[in-house]
């Protein structure tokens, strides 16, 4: 039952999945606490526009997706802060715009060099050593950034109004968080795919919030949920011949429902 680990592509997929689990879990805790779940969905989908733009311009899809997703995430942040427009309206508009642009870019590029389907749904066979380096570097950057602003992020998530009055730069921190959220999405694309990464931006944190009432255990449980989903999902997908990204997300959802049940029983 362990020969799958010795396959080269599985080794890469596992290494990528485990690194991403930690990053996604930590980010998802703040997504849940700051109530940015829908923004996560929006930013994830807008990365598709970035990948397609990369295909059109013939540059690295990772690079173009980073620029595109960061831009869209911050645009959502700016527009969603207006009095006359709620954030979910802004997200609804921007993420469909980004997807639409993605489709247009693909049409214009006439290029089939880039595996767009792989970016949408994840393709663990395609993970290279270079991808692992990118995930390690950018994932590390995301974690260090969160560590640096940890207490400020917590205060803003807890009560942004009081945080603002007390002198915490709430708007800067929100934009900064949306930017590192975008980075997280982009480095996760190849493993779980754009469509499904939004699930992992929410589920680990949401599952942990059901059963913990302190933040250190919350982050620990979220990381555990993400690791079990990713490693377990890759294993099941290999033996049952299922799509890996979908299996990971299904397993994560199952873990969410279990912790939801435990949370209810505890009360």
């Amino acid at each position, binding site marked *: 039952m362990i020969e799958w680990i010795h396959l080269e592509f599985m080794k890469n997929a596992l290494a990528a999945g485990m690194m991403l689990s930690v990053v996604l879990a930590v980010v998802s805790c703040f997504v849940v*606490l700051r109530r940015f779940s829908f923004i996560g969905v929006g930013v994830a989908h807008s990365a598709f526009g970035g990948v397609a733009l990369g295909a059109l311009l013939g540059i690295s899809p990772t690079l173009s997706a980073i620029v595109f997703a960061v831009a869209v995430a911050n645009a959502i942040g700016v527009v969603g802060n207006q009095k006359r427009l709620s954030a979910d309206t802004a997200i609804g508009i921007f993420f469909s715009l980004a997807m639409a642009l993605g489709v247009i870019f693909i049409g214009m590029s006439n290029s089939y060099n880039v595996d767009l389907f792989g970016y949408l749904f994840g393709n663990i066979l395609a993970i290279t050593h270079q991808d692992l380096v990118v995930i390690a570097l950018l994932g590390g950057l995301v974690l260090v950034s969160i560590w*640096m*602003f940890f*207490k*400020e992020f*917590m*205060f803003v*998530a*807890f*009560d*942004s*109004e*009081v*945080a*603002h*009055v*007390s*002198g*915490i730069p709430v708007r800067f921190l929100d934009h900064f968080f949306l930017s590192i959220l975008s980075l997280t999405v982009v480095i996760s694309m190849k493993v779980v795919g754009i469509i499904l990464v939004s699930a992992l931006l929410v589920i680990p944190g949401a599952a942990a*919030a059901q059963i*913990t*009432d*302190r*933040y250190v*255990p*919350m982050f620990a449980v979220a990381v555990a949920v993400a690791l079990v989903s990713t490693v377990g999902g890759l294993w099941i997908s290999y033996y049952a011949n299922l799509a890996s990204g979908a299996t990971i997300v299904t397993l994560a959802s199952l873990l969410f429902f279990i912790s939801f049940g435990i949370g209810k029983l505890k009360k």
Partner: protein
Amino acid sequence: MTVAAALQPSGLPPSTPDIYPDTQLLVDMSDVWVKFDGKWVLKSIYLKCTQGEILGIVGPNGGGKSTLLKVILGLIQPDKGAAQLFGQKPGKQSRLNVGYLPQVSHAERSFPVTVLDVVLMGLYQQLGIFSRVRTTHRQKALEQLDRVGMKEHAAKPFGKLSGGQQQRVQIARALVSSPRLLVLDEPSTGVDSVGQEDFYELLASLRDNQRISVIMVSHDIGVVTTYADRVACLNREIHYHGDTGPWAETDAYQKVFGKNLKVMVHDARCISCMMRHAHHD
């Protein structure tokens, strides 16, 4: 001050030396106007708050109370007129001396923080971005929790507390940065009546022992008449601004609340029952 003088139709004249002798002004609003969507929500507001006083701002919902607080805090810029907070334009710098309690806590009940974590948040601005919370900070936070009678709950999850207890913890958070002014938006919301009484006694003791000023917005006239030193009656414009005692003698409350007075809190301190010309069933 005479009743007639108290009923200036367009708020308080800029100089009223009789009620503000020589004391330091923490808040000074002068002919402030604020417009939302083409409608004036605050008209010609003159408002002062001195050191060591509890100022109650009463008025109906939609009368501009929260907007007024936001102008004081510098979160909204007036369209006309000027507001001063500690002698400066309200903003990031002058807000450092203010402890703020919002009307509703935006936090979810399940938010994973302890009572002590919440109080420590009050120190984050002073601490700065890269520094960590240390034992001395925890000590400081525990002192404030002790002051509001919540020390034994320090390790509990914040969401498990009652509304009144959460409010005390939020006061401790506001106090931990040593503010000179507390700004409270509808402090009675979600707190039972015993909890309320304790809470206002706590505010009075902060005023008496620390000379901390309090500005509180409320739609509960009973609370304001009992605990506030001065009161401002607000319905887009200020109908009365002065000592609480004489206020009960005027009909300013009727101008502001109109016929809706009956829906106000009714208890032993009910203002309507204290009125000579009360129409209460």
